[in-house]
């Protein structure tokens, strides 16, 4: 049979999809453990999520959560940093740390036959790190040097300045790496205290997914983490979580971090917008897909495909437990900077009502969010990280199976209403890292306010 090329083939009904069963356990020390069987490949993944993250850095100590996370694998017991790395390599483990705004996530994957050794090393690192002075000194120096290097990375420079403009002095207002002064000002004692305060079973969750039974998975957790205690810090008053602190309103502005001779301008346009637990989440996800969340979104088609200003433009929410930013991001050709800003702001305005989503846009956005959904859960690592997200945001175990019907229930009216509620052109902050001499004049001529030039830090 030859192909019929007079029209595209019909797409059949969506295949049914069931998320692996999540079994919940609570260890006697209060540790929240969730296990998932995942049998495709003989591997196992441990995800330990510890509440806090860079949002737990107090003023003047920006970067403390991240450097503490970094210190965890610098040695335990008699093992040096090199020995730890050797022990992980000998079981072919992949070890990774992600310092988020609300939590720090430690992930370790290994071959199923090394599961006991993997969980045991992870437990040693997290609950009994050496935290030695000479390691702290070296790790801090590497981070200070890293700070110097990221001055040359336009996306990092933009991210830092943009967070500061949006959040001011709020604990979400800094990069997890911190800043030069804060890193220089901290000592090993701060790390030790921070570790004791945050790294506790009562404030953590462990997700274990792998090619073995729930019984065996939970036994791995129990054997490795059952003796972990909440320590003396239990009686300390819990500090207020960043998510519970309302950010003070900041002044919308147009600002430039000057980068002489830059071939491109790094662009951020947005404002604080919504919390992850908003009841409008599904409508916002659909709205974002239409506006800038996929290749065929409005901003990418406009800035990349129609105008050729950029290699790619997108919009998105940088979700947190607390109030999260919504922004448009692109790296655009220097000569096109002002035009790209104007076109971007026009798109952010239009989706609020003057150009409501068409039926085609609605069906495309929903389909791209729902029909390919099962592919997000192919590996044990993906499944375990997904469940950690449920814990972080307080979502039910049925969340992944309900996601598709929830998105499909969103209407065009819901999208417009969500855009009106969560995107406000009058509140937009625009931040550009670029060649000020080449772009300053045309930016001022946009009529979006006087351009403010920010210092390098």
């Amino acid at each position, binding site marked *: 049979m030859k192909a019929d090329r007079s029209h595209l083939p019909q797409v059949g009904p*969506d295949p049914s999809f069931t998320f692996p069963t999540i079994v919940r356990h609570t260890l006697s020390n209060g540790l929240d453990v969730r296990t998932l069987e995942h049998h*495709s490949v003989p591997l196992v993944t441990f995800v330990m999520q510890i509440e806090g993250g860079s949002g737990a850095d107090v003023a003047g100590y920006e970067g403390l959560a991240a450097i503490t996370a970094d210190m965890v694998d610098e040695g335990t017991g008699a093992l040096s*940093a090199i020995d730890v790395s050797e022990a992980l*390599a000998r079981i072919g483990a992949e070890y990774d740390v992600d310092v988020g705004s609300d939590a720090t996530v430690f992930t370790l994957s290994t071959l199923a036959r090394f599961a006991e050794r993997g969980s045991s090393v992870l437990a040693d690192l997290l609950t009994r790190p050496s935290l030695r002075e000479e390691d702290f000194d070296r790790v801090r120096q*590497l981070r200070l040097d*890293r700070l110097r290097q990221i001055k*040359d990375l336009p996306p990092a420079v933009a991210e830092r300045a943009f967070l500061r403009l949006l959040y001011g002095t709020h604990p979400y207002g800094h990069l997890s790496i911190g800043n030069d002064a804060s890193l220089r000002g901290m000592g090993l004692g701060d790390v030790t205290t921070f570790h004791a305060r945050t790294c506790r079973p009562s404030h953590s969750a462990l997700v274990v997914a792998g090619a073995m039974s729930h019984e065996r998975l939970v036994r791995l957790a129990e054997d490795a983490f059952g003796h972990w205690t909440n320590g003396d810090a239990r009686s300390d008053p819990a500090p207020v979580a960043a998510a519970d602190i309302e950010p003070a309103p900041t002044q919308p502005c147009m600002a430039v971090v000057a980068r002489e001779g830059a071939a491109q301008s790094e662009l951020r346009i947005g404002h604080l917008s919504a919390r992850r637990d908003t009841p409008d989440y599904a409508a916002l996800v659909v709205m974002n897909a239409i506006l800038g969340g996929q290749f065929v979104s409005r901003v990418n088609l406009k800035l990349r495909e*129609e105008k050729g200003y950029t290699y790619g433009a997108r919009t998105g929410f940088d979700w947190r437990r607390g109030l999260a930013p919504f922004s448009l991001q692109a790296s655009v050709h220097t000569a096109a900077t002002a035009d790209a800003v104007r076109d971007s702001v026009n798109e952010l305005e239009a989706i609020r009502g003057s150009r409501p989503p068409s039926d085609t846009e609605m069906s495309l956005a929903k389909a791209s969010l729902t029909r390919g959904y099962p592919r997000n859960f192919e590996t044990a690592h993906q499944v375990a990280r997904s469940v950690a997200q449920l814990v972080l945001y307080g979502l039910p175990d049925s969340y992944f199976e309900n996601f598709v019907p929830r998105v499909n229930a969103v209407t065009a009216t819901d999208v417009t209403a969500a855009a009106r509620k969560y995107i406000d052109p009058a509140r937009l902050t625009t931040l550009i890292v670029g060649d000020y001499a080449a772009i300053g004049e045309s930016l001022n001529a946009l009529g979006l306010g006087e351009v403010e030039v920010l210092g390098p830090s």
Partner: protein
Amino acid sequence: MDPIDLPFAKRTLDNGLDVLVHEDHHVPIVAVNVWYHVGSKNEVFGRTGFAHLFEHLMFEGSEHHNSGYFPPLQQAGALLNGSTNTDRTNYWEVVPTSAVDLALWMESDRMGYLLPALTKQRFETQRDVVLNERRQNYENRPYGLGMMVMSAALYPSDHPYHWMTIGAADDIRAMQLEDVQSFFRTYYHPSNASLAIGGDIEAERAFDLAEQYFGELSPGPRPARVTAAASLTRESRLVLEDRVEMPRVYMAWHSPAMFSEGDADMDLAADLLANGKTSRLYRTLVYERRLALDVSAYQSSRELGSFFLLAATAAPDQSLTDIAALIDTEIQALADKGPSSSEMERAAAQAEAHFMYRLQTVGGFGGKSDQLNAYNVFTGNPGFFPTDVARYRDATAETVRAAVAQYLAFDRRVLLSIVPRGQAALALPGSEPVAAS
């Protein structure tokens, strides 16, 4: 160690298209993956960047679907992408099982019927997009021009690895629509392609669908194999001034071609020397002496011949000369005495795990369908996976030592210092200035 494998079935259509199928029914998705055996190695000096620009045009529509490639597939829930390197161009979709027909229809239409949809306007827009990609990923990125300088220094201008796949900006600007058309006729047809289908689909059905959608396409002429040789006869030292905070040194050598003898040994040597905290150079340069902020190495395995690259970034106020001297000491030690048995045990464990991790996903870059095509295109044997595993299992301390001694010679390499603008004195002594843009 458990035997691990990547099972598949293969058939070749009458028009020469190889079809590879791998079943994996864990998740209701199917991966479609197409390789064309063409990359920037098929370009000539002065007309570079072509293969990659062409990849962009493959997403702009074809005769029977004369608009963007993304919308119908994204509407069906697909994830899709493509990439180009020196040796090949690949395209893939990961779709729900309900959209396999659609993905194969779309891939076959652009394989067979691209040109009628290729307009001057689409071509010119993508030319601008590529120039932006070049600015974003190379010109505007610290150390982003380093590999351009290295490629040019490692290979003479008549060797197709002399330039990077992104191409020279002037060459990209000078491209014409007619050039694109002849490129398509030469390289984009079934007998220069390989199709892999992996995931939740029965093999028989996959073969039937492949025949249905691709069987009608004309085979096209098999392109001549590119051959080129290159050698270094001395140590050359270069310095590039760039917008960077810290000086960095790159060292590169020619090394055995992909899958040839010595290739896996050099890959293992890269790990032993400079990957991870347990590596010899991390330990000395970063951990103990604190001369460097980072150090890394890799064997860049390629079809016509590979290169081995080492890089280290200086810590503040530390000199590249001291760093380079320590690197040489470690290379010499490895060439003289070889890895310890403990290092080889570690490498074996890491290699085993690495191959196991590679079996987790059916699609996308590096997924099982992509690996089947890689093996098929580069070795002619899609069943090469266990042989690949064996290359690493069979490596010994002596084979690694011998490879290091043979290939990492101090008098046949390129040393590039990248230093902050205006500070050429921070480069290794005797370095000649080079420019890149």
